[in-house]
């Protein structure tokens, strides 16, 4: 196992720069998730770490060694691909043994390692099958088994769950996390699914457009997003944003309603700002409190009720544990938890903190 240091790494395809100076420190044994919308450069960054893409500038260190120009086979990394990339003409056993066979490891050593990995992943019964004969979840496990057998310095996962159905995805999520706790190993995991990121990561790196937006522990990103992008990306349903201005220690919405700001939410008087409120931090209140919204849609999910509503032209979502059933078009009043408000600069989108 080893730490990974990414220092001002850049990537250009021709004249187009797609990764603009990314720096991430990954500690030994840490589970880091790179998350962002498609096209944000997270997969490219992962492929650069794997040695499948060249690094245009900056330094990539695995352990204490700079590996910018080292070929993939010398980096001692293992990768799990989105489409699993299992060799279709090899049985499960041979798929898992392939890397060790190439290294000319002794046969009994290979056998021991493959069987140990198969046991960890519950693949014992499937070693004689071809990939075609496996279900999606089983193939996924074989792909992980292939990585474990190598006992690499770093595990790389490239959207490994996106080809699975929703239920299996949740199950495999748990399995990968449990596996990491059992096997250990520095892990870099790429996904576009923020729930995967939140539930699995020790540390999340949110990326957008080839830049790192914020790095932090899952709840840190949830509680203290650095900017509107992270605030809107982390959490589901996404955070609501209301445009307005600060006046007399309160936020004035576009509809001229007052939302008192909590202590320490210093923002200059009269400044154009965006107020961020998570759907779960809104509560239904009576007349004279909070601000008014018009109900657009009510979506009961069983455990909670999601209400999509409009405040003027701005749409927002509120989530209630109680089974409110307002009619479409009904006007109701909601109030945010004052301690759970986020203020962002109206122009740059950066978080405003006292």
């Amino acid at each position, binding site marked *: 196992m080893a730490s990974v240091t990414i220092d001002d790494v850049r990537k250009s395809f021709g004249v187009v720069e797609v990764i603009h100076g990314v720096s991430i420190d990954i500690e030994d044994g840490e589970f880091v998730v790179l998350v962002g919308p498609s096209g944000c450069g997270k997969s490219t960054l992962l492929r650069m770490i*794997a*040695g*499948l893409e060249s690094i245009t500038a900056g330094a990539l260190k695995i352990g204490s060694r700079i590996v910018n120009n080292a*070929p*993939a*086979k010398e980096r001692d*990394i*293992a*990768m799990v*691909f*989105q*489409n699993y*990339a299992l*060799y*279709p*003409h*090899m049985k499960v056993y041979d798929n898992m043994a*392939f*890397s060790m066979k*190439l*290294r000319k490891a002794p046969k009994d050593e290979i056998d021991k390692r493959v069987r140990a990995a198969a046991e960890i992943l519950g693949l014992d019964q499937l070693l004689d*099958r*071809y*990939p*075609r*004969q496996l279900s999606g979840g089983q193939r996924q496990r074989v792909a992980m088994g*292939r990585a474990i057998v*190598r006992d690499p310095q770093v595990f790389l996962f490239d959207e490994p769950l996106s080809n699975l159905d929703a239920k299996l995805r949740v199950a495999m999520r748990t399995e990968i996390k449990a596996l990491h706790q059992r096997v250990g190993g520095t892990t870099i995991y790429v996904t576009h699914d923020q729930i995967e990121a939140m539930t699995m990561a020790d540390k999340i790196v949110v990326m957008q457009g080839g830049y790192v937006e914020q790095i932090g522990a899952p709840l840190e990103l949830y509680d203290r997003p650095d900017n509107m992008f992270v605030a809107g990306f982390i959490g589901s349903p996404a955070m609501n944003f209301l445009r307005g201005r600060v006046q007399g220690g309160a936020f004035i919405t576009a509809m001229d309603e007052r939302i008192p700001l909590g202590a320490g939410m210093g923002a200059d008087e009269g400044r154009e700002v965006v107020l961020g409120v998570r759907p779960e931090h809104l509560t239904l209140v009576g007349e004279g409190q909070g601000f008014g919204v018009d109900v657009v849609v009510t979506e009961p999910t069983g455990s909670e009720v999601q209400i999509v509503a409009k405040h003027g032209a701005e749409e927002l979502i509120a989530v209630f544990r109680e089974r409110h059933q307002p009619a479409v078009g009904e006007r109701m009043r909601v109030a945010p938890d004052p301690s759970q408000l986020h203020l962002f600069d109206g122009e740059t989108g950066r978080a405003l903190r006292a």
Partner: protein
Amino acid sequence: MLPAAAFLLLFLAYPLGLGVYLSFTDARVGRAGSWVGLENYEFLAGKNPLWDFFAIISNEVVGTKYELTGDPVFWLSVFNTLLYTVVASALKFAIGLYLALLLNRHMPFKAIIRAVVLVPFIVPTVLSAIAFWWIFDTNFSILTWMLRSIGVLGEKEVINYLGDPLNARASVIFANVWRGVPFIAITLLAGLQTVSPSLYEAATIDGASRWQIFRYITYPLLTPIIAVVMTFSVLFTFTDFQLIWVLTRGGPFNSTHLMATLSYQSGILGGRLGDGAAISTAMIPFLLAAIMFSWFGLQRRKWQHGEGND
């Protein structure tokens, strides 16, 4: 069903059946002929075909002078056909595969280069055969001219490409390879493109060198399409006619006579339809063997069959 069956009967089964029937008669052009049983085959293949088969190979390869029990020209054509098919197919496979691997890489003007590769396949065979006729001409050969300019040949030296038995065999094989490579290259290229790039990446990360990736990933994944394309290639080469007929007409000394050209010569030009039909019919066992070999030996791969547990 019925129209398809009628079609097959009319255009496949009837000519085949007629050919086989004629091979059991002494029909000549303009005379229906009568049933002679296996007489034609006995005349061609002799009393002991197996002995003749190995004798002709021995005579041609090591220069022994065994007496054949059958028709020496027929057996020579069998030998020629096998030599022609084996050597040309092996060369076509090697060059075609190499070309496919090259064309599968990223390079500028990829589409145009791929199209250019197809040219030998598109040009009508008779046309390219005539071009080769000039290329292989003793006096006006461009090959000779080139060899002279780089000093391999002296000013007055010539190569008798089509007049010497060994040269003639090499020349017709060369022309056949030139014509056949594009088909194999393009088909294998299509096969290569179905291999997911992530398999190469996975193998790279697993530590495989370029050769190992080819040996353990690309080649095994290509075997099904190789089996198909090589079966076709062998069938086409074995039954080749046009190229030989334009270039050598089977000469010199029958050294390039294939079964197809010999059949035409004795059946149509010589007028002995029964004989010609028998030579043609004698090709069928060889072709069937080639098909069986590829069908059972190469084409079936367990990993290709999808669902089900074993």
